[in-house]
């Protein structure tokens, strides 16, 4: 925002006697908001273009040539101009607002006492502040059948609808996905669903949050509470690597809903349904509450002390008997940075092993690269990208809110290329869609480099240093060779290469798990090198890198939950075993924190272990095979930090009273570390973060205070210069 607005001329106007200076093109409503003056709105939404439909935001603007008085104007559609004098509280404005509210209420049922929105309803609030005390309408209201289902998760009460079109416009203009439409006209107007296109968008929940009244309600939230009974805590969605900011609304001991806590740099104010309604595991009555120990083949309840003693004893015994190489740990892409940091520290210092890893995509050894494998651009940078290439990535299903960013970029004129073995929803909006054979993405990246080199299109720092040797590396990667597996012609591939090479800003994204496809062993490096050759690594509105799977996938790497690097990607002299090696019989005792390897490997492999300890919230397939199960807390019950896919470190706050009996992973780790002979004095994750900030250069200076509410992005400043990729 600041980048864009700095070039725009500023305009100074007066609103209710207060002088306010805003960029040209700002609407009066926004200027008033900046001046701290409320102007009521329904149809207007700061994330969408003005509509001017609800006629609520009337203000009086002094005429340029008095005494020609003008009728009140709508503040959401009127752009500011220099010297404008605006009044928001004149008799004319008061009457106009009263008039609109009276109109809205003539057909609005007075079922506030049972309406889920009651207490946080804009119609209630604005009526109280600006409305008439009583209605003069004493005739027959319009009636509709009470709530109808518009989607799997959402109900619509058409009587309550004030036809502001926020929901319809969101689905059509922002989500650009199957959604809601306006039906009928005039007083018969209603919101509805196109019978040929069910409202099955993964972004559907946003319409519930945007609805200014109780017309659209979530089935999960219906009649479960009144809003004033909720305790609201800022947090971060645990659903995926985007790290959308959420507010966790809790009543007594249950999460009742997540709502957006707008962070323009990350989520732009939106959530996906997976994140919004994915809180049930936290509330699940079947969650683990008591430590379990296997006796005679069955898991039995035990005390924390007994369980922890047993774990420490077994791990130590394994080391004594078989050496440090016989133990290993699998860390988590869901737990916090602090916990992952402590996890690797406990293993490295307490058990003297580097057998540490987590489930992740295939990247060249972290110790070999000069920089971490990470998206080099920013989420907001995507907004103004000229070209976007999805190379085996489907954000809509995997990192959904990023899909909205891509659509925003498309609205700004970006050109999208989708290379994906499977059809994806975004295909419809793409300029190119190539159905490739799984595992051919890396070969495509090399073919693109072949074209760039063959046609002398390289730019940036790399261009000068291209040697004949280097050139020969991609000699055989001709577009002709890969065309068939890519589902495009060689000319198509050449066209894409030229486009990327000439682009003002190309964003090249691949899903981290795409790198696991046989054939894609070098995808991460190849994609990076392609961006390097075409100068898109650090260019504004450009970038290359993986889209991670989980909320703290990047954090786990940053914290050194990897066999070959310590926290901050510091290389280790004697790397340990990786994920597959540990599970494939490499270790005898395995310590698992917040991970479920049974999903990825043959569960029978877990049965072969001498000893398996699992820290987990629920009885997963892995926990079922454990010798000791230690009940852990969810993201909502503890503090800590997580790092999203664009390197933004964000704080979690305790939203929910911890489940009795369960403990936070960091507490479990601290207790075990003590039993392993380590002298840890951490009082809370905040102490751990302090240590991380000094031990991990990328996280230097990060304290809970510095992170504020919306986190801080670590930069490449602490990294060595990029010199060479391979």
């Amino acid at each position, binding site marked *: 925002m600041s980048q864009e607005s700095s070039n725009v001329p500023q305009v100074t106007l007066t609103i209710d006697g207060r002088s306010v200076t805003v960029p040209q093109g700002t609407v009066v409503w926004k200027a008033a908001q900046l001046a701290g003056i409320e102007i009521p709105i329904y149809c207007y939404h700061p994330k969408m273009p*003005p*509509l*001017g*439909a*609800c*006629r*609520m935001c*009337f203000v009086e603007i002094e005429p340029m040539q008095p005494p020609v008085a003008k*009728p*009140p104007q709508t503040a959401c*559609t009127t752009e500011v101009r220099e010297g404008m004098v605006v009044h928001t509280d004149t008799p004319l404005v008061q*009457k*106009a607002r009263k*008039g*609109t509210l*009276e*109109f*809205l209420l*003539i*057909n609005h049922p007075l079922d506030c006492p049972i309406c889920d929105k009651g207490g946080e309803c804009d119609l209630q609030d604005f009526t109280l502040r600006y409305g008439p005390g009583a209605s*003069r*309408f004493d*005739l*027959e209201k*319009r009636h509709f059948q009470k709530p109808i289902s518009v989607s799997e998760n959402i109900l619509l009460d058409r009587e309550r609808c*004030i*036809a502001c*079109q926020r929901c319809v416009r969101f689905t059509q203009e922002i989500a650009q996905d199957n959604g809601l439409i*306006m039906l*009928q*006209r*005039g*007083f*018969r*107007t209603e919101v509805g669903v196109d019978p040929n296109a069910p409202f099955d968008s993964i972004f559907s929940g946003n319409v519930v949050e945007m609805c200014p009244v109780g017309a659209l309600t979530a089935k999960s939230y219906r009649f479960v509470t009144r809003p004033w009974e909720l305790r609201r805590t800022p947090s971060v969605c645990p659903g995926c690597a985007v790290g959308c900011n959420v507010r966790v609304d809790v009543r007594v001991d249950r999460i009742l809903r997540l709502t957006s806590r707008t962070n323009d740099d990350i989520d732009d104010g939106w959530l996906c349904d997976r994140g919004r309604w994915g809180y049930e595991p936290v509330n699940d009555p079947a969650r683990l509450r008591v430590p379990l120990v296997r006796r005679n083949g069955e898991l039995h309840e035990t005390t924390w002390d007994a369980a922890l003693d047993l774990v420490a004893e077994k791990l130590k015994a394994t080391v004594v008997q078989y050496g440090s190489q016989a133990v290993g740990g699998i860390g988590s892409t869901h737990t916090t940075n602090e916990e992952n940091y402590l996890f690797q520290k406990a293993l490295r210092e307490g058990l003297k092993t580097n057998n540490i890893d987590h489930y992740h995509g295939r990247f060249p050894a972290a110790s070999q690269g000069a920089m971490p494998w990470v998206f080099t651009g920013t989420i907001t940078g995507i907004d103004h990208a000229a070209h976007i290439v999805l190379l085996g990535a489907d954000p809509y299903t995997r990192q959904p809110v990023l899909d909205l960013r891509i659509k925003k970029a498309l609205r700004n004129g970006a050109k999208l290329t989708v290379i994906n073995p499977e059809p994806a929803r975004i295909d419809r909006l793409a300029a190119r869609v190539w159905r490739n054979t799984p595992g051919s993405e890396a070969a495509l990246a090399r073919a693109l480099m072949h074209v760039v080199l063959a046609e002398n299109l390289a730019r940036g720092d790399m261009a000068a240093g291209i040697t004949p040797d280097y050139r020969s590396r991609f000699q055989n990667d001709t577009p002709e060779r890969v065309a068939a597996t890519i589902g495009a012609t060689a000319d198509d591939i050449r066209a894409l290469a030229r486009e990327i090479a000439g682009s003002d800003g190309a964003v090249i994204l691949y899903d981290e798990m795409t790198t696991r496809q046989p054939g894609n062993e070098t995808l991460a490096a190849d994609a990076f090198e392609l961006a390097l050759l075409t100068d898109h690594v650090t260019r504004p509105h450009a970038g290359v890198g993986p889209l991670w799977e989980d909320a703290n996938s990047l954090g786990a790497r940053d914290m050194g939950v990897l066999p070959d690097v310590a926290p901050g990607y510091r290389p280790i002299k004697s790397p340990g075993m990786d994920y597959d090696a540990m599970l494939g019989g490499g270790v005898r005792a395995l310590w698992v924190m917040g991970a479920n390897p049974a999903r990825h490997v043959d569960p029978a492999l877990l049965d072969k272990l001498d000893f398996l300890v699992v820290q987990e919230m629920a009885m997963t397939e892995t926990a079922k095979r454990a010798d000791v199960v230690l009940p852990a807390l969810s993201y909502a019950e503890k503090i800590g930090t997580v790092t999203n896919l664009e390197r933004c470190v964000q704080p979690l706050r305790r939203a929910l009273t911890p489940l009795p009996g369960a403990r936070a992973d960091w507490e479990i780790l601290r207790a075990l570390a003590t039993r392993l002979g380590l002298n840890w004095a951490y009082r809370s994750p905040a102490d751990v973060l302090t240590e991380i900030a000094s031990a991990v250069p990328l996280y230097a200076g990060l304290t809970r205070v510095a992170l504020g509410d919306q986190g801080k992005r670590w930069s490449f400043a602490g990294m060595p210069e990029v010199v060479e990729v391979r």
Partner: protein
Amino acid sequence: MAEQMRVVTKDIDVPGIDTLAVYEQHGGYQALRKALGMEPAAVLEEVKASGLRGRGGAGFPTGMKWSLLAKGSPKPTYVVCNSDESEPGTFKDRMLMEKLPHRLVEGVLISAYATGAKQAFIYIRGELALAARQVMRAIDEAYAAGYAGKNIMGSGHDIDVMVHRGAGAYICGEETALLESLEGKRGYPRLKPPFPAVAGLYGGPTVINNCETLSTVPAIIANGAAWYAAIGTEKSKGTRIFCLSGLVNRPGNYELPIGTTFRTLIEEFGGGVIGGKQVKAFIPGGSSTPMLPADKLDISADYESVAAAGSMFGAAGVIVLDEDTCIVGAVLRMTEFYRDESCGKCTPCREGTFWLVQLLERLEAGHGRAEDIDLLNDICDNISGKSFCPLGDAAATPIVSSIKLFRDEYIAHVTQGRCPFRARELATAGNH
């Protein structure tokens, strides 16, 4: 019987004038030929000099409208003919399209040439099936004869003309809703600015003219601006097709010079009120213009005089209400129309018209209260100037103007507890 002045409707009664051959025999497409021999700017100047004002209702000078088109837009310029004639009391465009389709096509082609548009659309009200068929046939004939399409009349200019039929919404007569509809979207009016002249159809500079306006253009080009400007009054030039309806003996379309009095129109052309009754009131420009009392019948029917009398010339849809017409009932009928045709986009129009109809129903049924009359006025005040587009203002107009003129009638409905006119009707019926 007095004679009409046939400028736009010239030769309308000639058999077969709707075919190209007959139209050509009567000078058809000569104006286009003449225009193509002129510079586009000269054609525009001619229209400007003629003083022609838009016949759709707003009366905006046509030449000026064309000259406001944005220059240098990267997007194409479009000409759109608004033939979505839906205002209660108007039926002139329908007649022009049904009987003189080639004149409209010729006018459209000339305006496209003058404005530099290569594509013109004629947006025809969905219900006017015959009109649409006639215009489409005329376009086909014009293409076949080389008047439309590529290199028209060997001039090197390409102009395509296409008919788009509406889907049955009054709101699509509002020019920006029309553009939305033309683009295949729901007929909601657009936010202005940008105005269509800057960013209209598909974002291109767009001129939107009424059917009668464009049908007038050939006569202006053929006979010259001076000839046209000599007709009418000093400020309101030319002729208008008056759509005379209501309780008159000979309702219909009458093309007369602007400045004819309403009395002449009603008495000489319309044959007076049925049964020799008195005029109680008349609506001069279509139902969305304020009604005027009988003592205004002698004013000159031109933009300025009608405005001075407190109404608007509008689309010249003259509706006559006789002495036995119940004003409340008539206004109720009009308000129902606006309620049903409100697009529903903005709150005051959507909800206000719903409320107004219920109140008027109550009054007409004799269950009204004295305070309902002021309530009607206040609701209208909350709609007028507060709604998104002029439809809301239009809906309020019949009510506000009728209460101003005939408050007594409203009060009578309340005090008598029934409609005085309905009661009289019933009494008369009982005598038989």
